[in-house]
Structures are given as structure tokens and as C-alpha cells.
């Protein structure tokens, strides 16, 4: 079973999807389905990653795919509160530029040596 808990709260046209747990291969389908159904009812979907301690590339792709799909319908998917390894994952792949909230997006840009894990 997936170790990911997904809670979606919809207010007006804004849905907040709160993830709690591990985003690995087993949770990929759960996440993709949650994002799809959130997009069905809201135009802005905010994914709260505060309680996610692991996010692998398949889940990252689920987030990006949802973002791209939303953009085609003039909707928006973005993430907030990414921390630790999840933030590193978003930054290494550069997709934080895509998934950051619209207000921050211009400042984020493409991370340039944002973090050197090498120390």
C-alpha cells in the first residue's frame, strides 16, 4: 500500500491538496488521480508538500504533467512548502521554476548552483 495520505480541501475555485508521507512509485497513481480530480473542481490547485519527506522523479512528473494539463485549460497547479530533499529534487530538476506559485515564479527562475550538496 502507498504510504501517502492525500487530503483535498476545496474553497470556491481553489483546491488545496495536502500530501503527507512518501511520494514514491507506489503513490504515483494516487497523486496523479488526486491532482486530476482537484483540477476537475478548481481552477487553482495548490499542492502542499510540507509533510512530504521523499519525492521521486515519477511523482515529480505527475506534478509537472498536472501543471501542463492545467495550463492548457487556463488553470494552474503549483506547489508550496517544499523543504529538505523535496525542495532539492524540485531545484535539481529545475521544475521549481514551473511549479512555484505565480507570485514567486519570476524570482525563482532557473536555479543556478542554488545548492551544492557537495558542501
Amino acid at each position, binding site marked *: *500500500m502507498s504510504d501517502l495520505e492525500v487530503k483535498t480541501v476545496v474553497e470556491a475555485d481553489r483546491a488545496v491538496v495536502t500530501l503527507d508521507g*512518501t511520494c*514514491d*512509485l*507506489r503513490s504515483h497513481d494516487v497523486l496523479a488521480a488526486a491532482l486530476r480530480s482537484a483540477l476537475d473542481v478548481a481552477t487553482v490547485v495548490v499542492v502542499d508538500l510540507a509533510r512530504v*519527506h*521523499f519525492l*521521486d*522523479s*515519477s511523482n515529480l*512528473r505527475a506534478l*509537472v*504533467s498536472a501543471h*501542463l494539463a492545467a495550463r492548457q485549460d487556463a488553470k494552474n497547479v503549483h506547489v508550496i512548502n517544499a523543504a*529538505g*530533499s523535496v525542495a*532539492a*529534487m524540485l531545484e*535539481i*530538476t*529545475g*521544475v521549481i*521554476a*514551473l511549479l512555484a506559485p505565480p507570485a514567486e515564479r519570476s524570482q525563482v527562475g*532557473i*536555479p*543556478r*548552483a*542554488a*545548492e*551544492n*550538496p*557537495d*558542501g
Partner: protein
Amino acid sequence: MSLSEPANGGLRSDSPSGSERPRPLWLILALVVVTYGTGASLAFLGFGAQSIVVLFLPAGVTLSALLLSPRRRWPWILLAAAATEVAVDLSHGLSPRWVWGFALANTAEPLVGALLLRRYVPAKVNLLRRRDLLAFLVCCVGAGPVVGGLIGATTLALSAGLPVPRSFLSFWAGDAAGVLTVGGCVLAWRHGAGRPVVARAALAAGLAAAATVIGFWPPQVPLFYLPIPVLFWLAFSQPLTVALTAGAATTVTANLMTSAGHGPWAALNTSDQVITLTLQVFLTTTILGAWALAVGVAERDRARWDTSVERAARLRLNALQILTADLAQAATSTSIAEAIVREGVGLLADYSSASVVSPAEDELAVWTAAGRRDDLAERNRRIPLDAATPHTDAVRTGRAVVHQTPADLAAAYPRLADGYRTLGVGSIVCVPIRTADGAPLGALAFGFQREHGVDSDVITFAETLANLSAQALRRAQIYERELDAAHQLQQALLPALSGGLVGIRVSADYRPADVAHQVGGDWYDVFPVPGGRIGFAVGDVVGHSLAAAAAMARLQSALRVIAQTAPDPARVLDEFDRASVLIADSRMATVGFADYDPATGLLRYACAGHLPPLLVTEGGAEYLWEGRSLPIGLGQRQRQQGERLMPHGAALVWYTDGLVERHGQPVTEVMRRLADAAGRCGEREPEGLCRHLLRHGAGAQVLGDDTVILCIQFTGAPYPTVATAAGDLPAGD
């Protein structure tokens, strides 16, 4: 009464006991004659013959004999009872003219009772079930003695001129009390389930008799109620047989005591008939009260039993649902076996294991779950198929292996006996996992600490699990074969590292993922680009198996073509991004591309969402974090690139996420460890570095995702190139 058995009386409804092993007719008849004769004599001698109102125990003897025998024997039993009645009556000086009336009364009565009861309760009479008890009371205690009482009273009226109503009442009360005490007792003993409790019953009877003697001894102090708490306590705590035996002892003792002039009834200044009538009423009321209590207790126990059975069933159903969901996600034999021991088995048994037949069909891989799911101890053990174990036996024979006692187990598997003893295994069942056409796939074993823990429920559940597992395993085998084919294809699509590249030495490796995980289309490439430069690429395509492999092949050739015209890595990736629109399944692919000029030692690199290359020099290892941009197909414009002069002899390691993505570990942490490993290694010769880092990344396990690793050592222009030929690619050892 313990919950481990559904109370005395059982929940089974078997055929009438007459059809079980019938005892010889002569024995039944002899028993009837002896007990009937004794009871009737007791009525005359012990309970006071002069009054007709006595406790007539033989009424219960005949009725019990009828109820416990097949109908063809009934005439003989009735004949024996009648003959005994006549003999006893004659011996006590009754007129031969009228004894036939009493004989008729005492045969018609049990016959009516037995016929009526059999009509409503055709199977075993469970005296702890309300319906059966009610039928017994109405038909045998009520209706039968009414008939007997009518005939008897008529006979008395004709012979002695006694008034019919009074004689009837007395006759009925005496016979009804006899049926209740003796008949109830015998039926409880013969139709009850569970262990016989002879010693306990004898003790209880003694206790009840003693309480009755004490209660009936002092003429002035009223203590006659003493047997009541004793009988109620027995009814509450003991099987019905014990309580009813004690009730019979109380009845007999109270009647004996009264006719011997003891107790409150003997002291009453009224007619004998009123005395004995009220005494029987008191006794039957007491016994019925205790009996009702026993029924209540039995119903409570049954309800609890039902609840616990229901609860166990619910837990199993829940486990099945979880397991079904898990099996749906489990793609490989390993993950299936793990899911079974994790979810399926803990709820069923104290110990359990699952085994899967190896592809070569010569051994079994066994996964063990010790105890409940929270202290799951999983380990993978291999045993040859010809070893003597429950698993191999079940697989070889295709049948369930059941051993219900430790002795049985030790005899069947002497070499495993010690292990079973240490664990405290009392009983086991092992069921084979087979395909629809009977081919063996593996086995499931369940162990219990108690002996005889394997009942039909357990076997049914185990077989259900085995069926579920069979379907999943079959699917996994097909999937594993397909995956294998996909991996081979992908391996074939990876480039042959051509020789003749001046200024670098290169080595690469590709490791397919553990088949439980998705397979991406990972690739690497090294090729010459104009201006004497060398271009190299590492990429990762999203998706599964064949589609991803195809996308990877197309992206790879597109990149080679574009790199021939675009001036630098950033422009290569820009054009590559545009070209990828035409390539299915390429969106979200990540690519790292670099070119190296051996003449100047300059490395230029750009990463489209790809992990940064790792530079390994004499001073250590560091990631190159410049030149980052979004993955392919996400609308990135004007990609960046980084530049770095490569010191002579430095090496560059470029890889895909399989090397640094570890479940539950921050990717930054794993990357740091990889850099440490590369820096400490000291080796910069590509082949050795490749091997070292793969070993560091994977350890002894298979990697969780497809992994590509490309190691390039920059030897600079003056050195001759020793490029690794295609055939020399280190194989996944």
C-alpha cells in the same frame, strides 16, 4: 464455559442418535427393565406406596429409551416397560385385574411424549436451545403424563373408587417430575456435545444430595432452600449434564427424606397427596429455574462465540482486501511473496511463510513472516526442491500438507523438528500455489502454536490466498518475461562506444532496474562533433519499457544529428527541445549534454532537468551546478550552459537518477555520499571508477530504477586514446 467451544449442546445438528452406532437391543431392554424396576420399586418402598402421588422416575426411563432408539425398537421397549410394571405391581400386591391399566398408562404416556417430541424436534434434542426445551416440556413433561394420568386415574377410579380429578393430578405430577428429572438428565448426557464429565457430575450429585439432606434434616428450622443455590451455581458454571444430574440427586434425596419423616413437608399437617404434590412442584420449579439459567448462559456463550467467529471472519476479509490491493500493485514474484507474508498471513496464523518456485524449477525461494505483522521478520531463503519440508512437499504433491501435533510434525520432518520446537509450533498447514492447469508456482505455509489449529476455516482461507497468489504470480511471470525482453532491447539500442576518440577514455554501464519498479528509457552517448570536439550525453525518458525504449532511441539519434550543427551545448538542447515535439513520449525527459575540446581542455555542459555531472580530480569530487534548465518539452527558452577547464587526468561522471534516488533518503544526501565515494576512490581510470561507483550506489542489491553511468577521463590531446570498445562494456555482473 469456555469460548473455545460453543457450550454444551453444540451447534451441530446431527441425525438422531438412533442412527449412530446402535447399541444391541438386549442391552437397551435390560437397562429399561432394571432401571424401570428399580424406579418403580423405589416409588413403592422409598416414597410411600400407599399414596399414589409419588415421584415416578420410571416415566423418564421409558421416554428416554424411546427417544434414543430407532422406531422399530419402540414396541420391544414398551413391551419390556409394561412387563416390568406388571411384575413390580404384582409383587407389591396389586390386583392382577387392574395392573393392566397401569401398564397401559405407563406405556401410552412415553409413547405420546416421544411421538410428539420427534414431530417437533426430529434431530438431536438440544436441551440448551429454547425451542427444544419448550418442546420437551410441552410434549414429554406436559402432554405425555396427561395421557398417562387420565388412564391411570380411570384405572384407580374403577379399581379403588378414587375420585378421578384428584387421582389425575397426583398421577400427572408424579410422572411429570419423573420425566423432567430422569428424561432431562438422560437426554442431556446422550445428546450433549463436548467431553463427558462423569467425575464432575458425580461430585455435583453428591454435593446436591448433601445440601438436600442438610436442608431437610432439622424439622423446626426451615433450610429446605439449601439445594437451590447449589443447583443454580452448577447451572451457571457447569455443563447441563452436571446440573441436571445434581437436580435428579436433589429430587430423589428430597423425596426419600420427606418419606422418612424429615424436612418441612414431612412436618406439614395435611394429606400425603398435598405433601408430595407440593414437594414435586417445589423440586421441579427449582430444577426448571436452574435449567433456565443454564439456557441463558449457553445463549450468552453462543452469542460470544458467534461474535468471535464473526470478528475473525471480518479480520480475514479485511486482510484479503488489503492483500488483493497489494497484489494488484505487485509486479514481481518477490513483491508478491512479500505482500502475502506481510498482509495475508499474520491474521490467520502465528507463523507463516510463502515460497515461489525458481525459474529453473529446481529450488524454492522462501519468505518468512514470524509472528504478527508488526514484528515481521522477512528473509529470503532458498531450499532445493527435493528437500523434505512442508513447502517442497506441497509443491511436489500438489496437495495440502497438514500436521496437527508436534509429534506428527517431528515424525514428518525430523530435520526441522528442532526449529519447530524452538518456535513452539503445534500444528501447520501448507497449501500449494498452482496455476489453473495445475503447474506448481509455490506454496503457502501457516503455523499455529496450539495443536489442531488447522480447521476447515483455516484451510479454506489458505486456499483462497493460494488462488489469489497464483493469479498474481502468473501475471508476474509474464510481466517479468516482457520486461526482460524490453531490457534486452534497450541494451541493444545503447550505443557502441566507438573507438578513435582522441583525448578521452570512456567507460559506461547500464543496469536495468529491479523489475518491481518502472523502467525508464535511460541512455548515454559519446560521439565526435565538428571542430575536433567530443560530445557526450546522458538522458532519461519517462515511461515504461518498450515505449520508453523507442522514445529513447529516437531522442538519441536526434541529439546526435543536432549536435553536428548547433554551436554549443545550450543551443543543442534548445534545438533538441524543439525537435522533441515530434517524438512521442519525450516530454519530461531529462538530458545532459556536454562537449569537450581536447585541444583546449574546455568542457561546456548543459542540463535539461538532468542531474549535474560529477567532476573527479586529484583534489576530490564536486558537482558542476552551472547550465541548468527545465526538462524537455516544458517550454524552456534560451537554455544556459556552464564551462570548466578540465585538469589533465580529471574524470567526469554522469549518471541517471537510478544511481542517486533511494527510497526514504534525501537525494542531496545520496549525491553527497556519491561524491565522497568518488573523491576517496583515488581511481580516475574510467572503467574502475564506473565499477566502484556502481558498487557504491547499488551495494549488493539491484538498483531501484534503471541506471546509466558514464565515466570519461580527460587525457588531453597529446595522449593516445584507449577507448573502450562496445564489446568491452562492463556487463552487469
